[in-house]
């Protein structure tokens, strides 16, 4: 029974990783850039949500949408200012820039509002503990899982059924050829960053509601874990990010359940190393030929 409870704990933790990993994997799939600033966009989303709930007195959904919008614009801005000039540079240059952008956002945020943590108001979402056969599930974690799955389905729909999705797939396949076919590569990449960052923003607000405490450096660890999740599922593959996030969350909970709670973060990165050694293309990597 305890282990089933742990499984539930793991899934709710994992769905947050999954939500951040979705954005990671999408940007990588299309621009082949590991956007290390993604975790910090997540942090910005959490703060936008916080201020729109406490200062603008918005209810949960408008706050979520506002945070997603702000993050989408923010993500596009980061891409235009920091990554676009480096599009034809080496990939390591872009990677190092991403790390720089990440530090800039973190310490910029500390400069603007200080480093002290903030507590999300507890009344944003109905919070009930559902008891089932001695297991307790909070309604919030079901809700988070629901939103993650919904956003993933929406993302799959955008990528496979819409015009912009078609353009994204084309750019990811061969940017030069796509340009020759009349696709505006810059706009497509902007759209990718916008969608990816909006997902990170949504994850930020949800994280705040679920875990209450937010602070300027909160994006670092979840960002890294989401990166592990994306690699675990096969970086660039959308369902892979979802599954990778959930698997990672469950692994971490089980590690704690066995009494090794101090090893939790360590195990997450051991998983990353093992995956890179034995299955570098990730769990979902082999059968998929098209990466978006």
């Amino acid at each position: 029974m305890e282990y089933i409870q742990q499984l539930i704990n793991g899934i709710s933790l994992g769905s947050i990783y999954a939500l951040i990993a979705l954005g990671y994997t999408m940007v990588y799939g299309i621009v082949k850039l590991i956007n290390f600033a993604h975790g910090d966009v997540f942090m910005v989303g959490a703060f936008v949500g916080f201020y729109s709930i406490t200062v603008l007195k918005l209810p949960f959904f408008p706050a979520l949408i506002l945070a997603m919008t702000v993050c989408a614009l923010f993500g596009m801005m980061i891409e235009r200012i920091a990554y676009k000039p480096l599009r034809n540079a080496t990939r390591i240059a872009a990677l190092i820039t991403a790390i720089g952008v990440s530090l800039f956002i973190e310490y910029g945020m500390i400069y603007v509002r200080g480093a002290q943590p903030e507590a999300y108001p507890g009344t944003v979402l109905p919070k009930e503990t559902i008891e089932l056969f001695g297991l307790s599930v909070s309604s919030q974690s079901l809700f988070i899982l629901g939103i993650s799955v919904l956003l993933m389905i929406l993302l799959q729909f955008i990528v496979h059924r819409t015009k912009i999705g078609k353009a994204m797939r084309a750019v990811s396949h061969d940017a030069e050829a796509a340009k020759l076919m009349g696709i505006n590569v810059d706009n497509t990449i902007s759209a990718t960053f916008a969608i990816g960052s909006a997902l990170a923003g949504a994850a930020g607000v949800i994280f705040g509601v679920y875990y209450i405490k937010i602070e300027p450096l909160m994006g670092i660890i979840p960002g890294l874990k989401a990166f592990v999740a994306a690699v675990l599922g096969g970086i660039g593959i959308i369902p892979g990010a979802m599954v990778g996030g959930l698997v990672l969350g469950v692994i971490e909970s089980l590690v704690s359940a066995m009494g090794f709670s101090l090893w939790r973060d360590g195990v997450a990165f051991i998983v990353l190393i093992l995956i890179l050694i034995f299955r570098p293309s990730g769990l979902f990597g082999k059968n998929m030929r098209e990466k978006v």
Partner: protein
Amino acid sequence: MNKKKFAGIFLSLSLLTGIAAGCGAQTGGSAEDTIKIGANLELSGGVASYGQSVSEGLELALEEINKEGIDGKKLQLVKVDNKSEAAEATSGALKLVSQDKVAAVVGAATSTNTLAQVEILAKNKVALITPTGTNPAITNKDGKVNEYAFRTCFIDPFQGTVAANFAADELKAKTAAVYIDSASDYSKGLAAAFKESFTKAGGKIVIEEAYIAKDTDFRATLTRIKSSKPDFVFLPGYYEEVGLIIKQGRELGIDVPFMGGDGWDSPKLAEIAGGDALNNTFITNHYSAGDPDEKIQKFVNAFKAKYKDKSPDAFAALGYDTAYYLADAIKRAGSADPVKIQKALADTKDLALISGKLTLDKNHDPVKSAAILEYKDGQQQFKTNVEPE
């Protein structure tokens, strides 16, 4: 530009600098009428709430002390922000000693950041007083007294012992879970004392778990704790994590009492955990703003008047006490010489402060009482005072 004009400008410039230098010498002269005191505190970062409270208490006390001054001299505070990190605390201590040449250093608010400064200050023969660092190793390491380290608060073993006795006698707990922050000397110190006293009182520790500061998800470990069915959970930690642990623990259905030490004492705790989840939790603390004692109420009112009706927590009270403790020592030393101040600090006896009468034992540790507080709907309620044995 002709030569004459140039010479004129040059002359007037040198005259100006001459005047400026004169002014400098004059302010330098008046600087002898102030005694510089360093404050190396957590003004930002993870436990900023502690450092800020201490700083507010210090400022209020210095304002009062400076009304009369000490032998005509005023105390001047030089603040350094250690960002709640040990490495920053170390470099902050160096700066205070080598650049500002302070007479003594107050800080830090937490044990870990205080320990990071102890050696540097001892080497430079400047006394360090931590208002709230409760780890025994600050003043006494491996059985040897650190001559230049002092504190205004009681030590961890005392807090842990008080909590263990309270759990066994008042709450009638037979079994307890201990959940600590593995990176904090403070948390480990309290837990060690708790375990010893609780077992001595006939209780049993059924499970021991640890977390790492900055974690946000504690559900997995809490589920383990729940299935070991303790009567009581001892949770010595700092408010950021403690708030989340209590909230998540209550959600998972752990409804037994939680108890911790002064690390819980921050208004943020109730914001993070929520008032409901905090019911049936207790802390040991240095003092309570709800204590009806006249001296305490006078301090509480002065603090509220200065800081927009904010109620002083224990950190503010100890910051305030530390300033008086230091001022008293400087007065008795009759000099701003750090070595003489050190001697006077060590000889302090029966000094009446907000957090009780302060007498130092041979380890430089104060012998004073502890207050036990209970949370009701997010508010601290004064329960009882426990005297040292």
